[in-house]
């Protein structure tokens, strides 16, 4: 587990360094994820260790959003003044995005991977 955590942090660190060194718009963790993905696709198998640690972290993914979500307190003024625009934009855009993405994929890809 310790090795797996080190691997994840190392990928993120390399990602952050690349993002800053080349002044990229893509955030460090995303570059780290891409590097790890390329490594995993290149290898024949996914290390069991890494797989179980990742599953552990990702199964509690929702928890990690809580501190940022509480940031709502820090922005009560903006939210108070512009809540109609913000809520309208978020609800409208989320519905349209779910529809567009789901519809296109179902149209193009159908039930190709639907057995589970």
């Amino acid at each position, binding site marked *: 587990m310790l090795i797996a955590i080190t691997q*994840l942090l190392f*990928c*993120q660190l390399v990602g952050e360094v690349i993002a800053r060194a080349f002044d990229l*718009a*893509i*955030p*460090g*963790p*995303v570059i*780290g*994820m891409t590097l*790890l*993905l390329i490594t995993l*696709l290149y290898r024949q198998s996914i290390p069991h260790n890494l797989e179980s640690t*990742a*599953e552990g*972290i990702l199964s509690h*993914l*929702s*928890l*990690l*959003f*809580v*501190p*940022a*979500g*509480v*940031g709502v*307190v*820090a*922005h009560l003024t*903006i939210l108070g003044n*512009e809540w109609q*625009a*913000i*809520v*309208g*934009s*978020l*609800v*409208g*855009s*989320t519905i349209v*995005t*779910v*529809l*567009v*993405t*789901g*519809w*296109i*994929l*179902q149209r*193009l*890809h159908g*039930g*190709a*991977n*639907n057995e*589970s």
Partner: protein
Amino acid sequence: MNPDFGEVWVYLSASPLTALTITLVAYLLGDWIYQKSGRMPVLNPVLIAVIVITIGLTVTGIDYWTYFEGAQFVHFLLGPATVALAIPVARLLKTMRSGYGALAISLIAGSATAAISAVFIAEILQASEQTVLSLAPKSVTTPIAMGIAERIGGLPSLTAVCVIMTGIIGAMLGPYVLNAARITSWDARGFAMGVAAHGIGTARAIQINKNAGAFASLAIGLNGLATATLIPILYAVWQWWSA
């Protein structure tokens, strides 16, 4: 009562220990209510935790940044969690034999739709420019969205709030919208939830169907990449257009 209670309070309100404990207790409470309700989408655990902590901070008068200084240990894990998304993505890509083109097309369409529709609706409803820019990356996972907002001149912390709200809205409404539109394939349902509502939508998809969960995880990672590339380009075009 302890005569030094004032001192104890000063320690507690400034120590990361309190913020971390509160965060975990509030989340566990939210998750317990969610499970007890038979996983009603409206009772999203993140939403409940945020409401509970917000009320707690308002009542005790602790300001957000003091809380966040402690809770940032939880927040920090979003970075390694983003890297960890490579694992479900790799697993899925290894078993997938075809359909890459379909994924790429719906990904780019979804990513562009999310940013453009959010900006368009906010503009119509007369949001300030800073708010509009903060809303643009709201469909990708928090660390990525905050990075993008910083790049284009939005308010990263406001973006974080919009991202969480988007996730909650997506987790609440997504399944109904997909049913209404007769989108029945689990791949498409999961992928749509991941593209539109990142980690919170994915957490919901994982609970409903394993295949949907895998596609949703794939979507968060890919959409992070797509949006981080697409928004700076769209922003440049928009600047040029309105100049």
